[in-house]
């Protein structure tokens, strides 16, 4: 799945915890320098935010009309 923001997308909207977390960390491991990834969820993943901050990753969040949180993450 691709998205206008980035081709690296984890669509976790219909996944049960902790799968969104696991998939996101797996994709982050595969990103090359300068690449960004997008996580799609119907909630804000606060435990993931904490881990991203601990690991020095940056992210920005946008809530779109259908209730999806688009979380753009980069190393």
């Amino acid at each position, binding site marked *: 799945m691709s998205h206008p923001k980035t081709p690296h997308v984890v669509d976790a909207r*219909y996944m*049960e915890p902790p799968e969104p977390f696991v998939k996101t*960390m797996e994709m982050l491991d595969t990103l090359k320098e300068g690449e960004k990834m997008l996580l799609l969820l*119907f*909630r804000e993943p*606060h435990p993931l935010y904490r881990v991203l901050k601990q690991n020095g990753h940056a992210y920005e969040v946008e809530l779109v*009309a*259908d*209730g999806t949180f688009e979380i753009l993450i980069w190393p």
Partner: protein
Amino acid sequence: MKALLSFDKAPPFAAPLRFFLTAPFFGLLAGLLIVWEGPSLLVSRWTPGALAATHLLTIGFMLQTMLGALIQILPVVAGINLANPLRVARWLHGGLSSGALLLVAGFLFGQPDALASAAIVLGLTLASFLMVIMPPLLRARSSSPTVRGLKLAMLGLAGTVVLGVVLALALAWGWPLPLIALADLHAAWGLGAWGGVLLAAIAYVVVPMFQLTPGYQARLSWWLPVLIFACIGFWSVSLIFELPLLGQAAQVVASLLGLVFCVITLRLQFKRRRARADATYRYWQLGLSCAIIALFSALTVVLWSTVANSNEWPLLFGILLVAGGFISFIVGMLYKIVPFLAWLHLQNLGQSKVPAPAMNKILGEKAMHRQMLCHLLAIALALGAVFSPDWLARPAGLALVVANAFLIWNLAGAVIRYRQHALVIAQKLAVL
């Protein structure tokens, strides 16, 4: 990477568990009270027995589980970590349980000292809780409708507590206040500004997460808690300045907003991706159906004052919204949260070397479903008892006792199995 899954910030299992395991005992006490008092309890909502049973369910069951769950899920839904969740849980649980029992004793035995003590214990406990939770919550950015909803819900809790304390002290010390109007307002704050807003804020997260449904539309989820809160605010203003039309308009809009939330949640559930209907899903369907009937009836009685002023309607509304609605939502969530937390803590205990058992090994689907049928029977009998108290009041109380005893059995069984698995995991780790 797996080490990152340790969720080291999650509160200890003992923090929320004490609330979850105590709540059904209050439900059981409510049932015993109905069996003991029998038909006279249902003469009106103002009988000492009805007031006592209502508060056994609203403080003893609902508030207990809502605050216990909140301590657990604040880090997940709002990124807020309390400094010492176990210590907060201990005094909050003690204050809530003893305060609820004092209040019930005050109502039942007409004891002013018990009523005043209950007001002081509950007032101080909940004010302390709000002082612990409000600073970090207000500092958190309202980055999602859930965080904004939680902030409003806490204000709703504060309003409910202030009104409740004033009412209990007024009853105890004979203050000349319009008790009936204030009690209506206390109920509106408790069930709308606190319970309703909290339910919506949490549902935005847990309905898509637990039941694999689509999400709530962003615009609606931003505004719904604000509008419900505003309606309760206008309702309060209408009482202070004696503006009955404004009060009626606020009641109509608040009921409509509640209906919108219930209908949208039902629609989302019909679009879920999880094929199997589990206990949480069924409990939510029951809760939504009861809440829709209750809110629809609240809409109609605004225009039909003879029904509103009858003894039956407030009892029916209370049974449908509290026992049928809120308690169904809560038990449905407990059946997801307790096995999930047990699994999570076992997973951490296994340190990625020994796997945790599947959640259905901790609490089986069949047991949850059977318990739900008892709960459904209790609601049906309680509704029938409003019209035929001589025949049905005691059977309704008995059904409530059975439903809550079954809930205790299920939850305690899950905890016992959790402890057994924890022992096995510790033994396996020792030989690795």
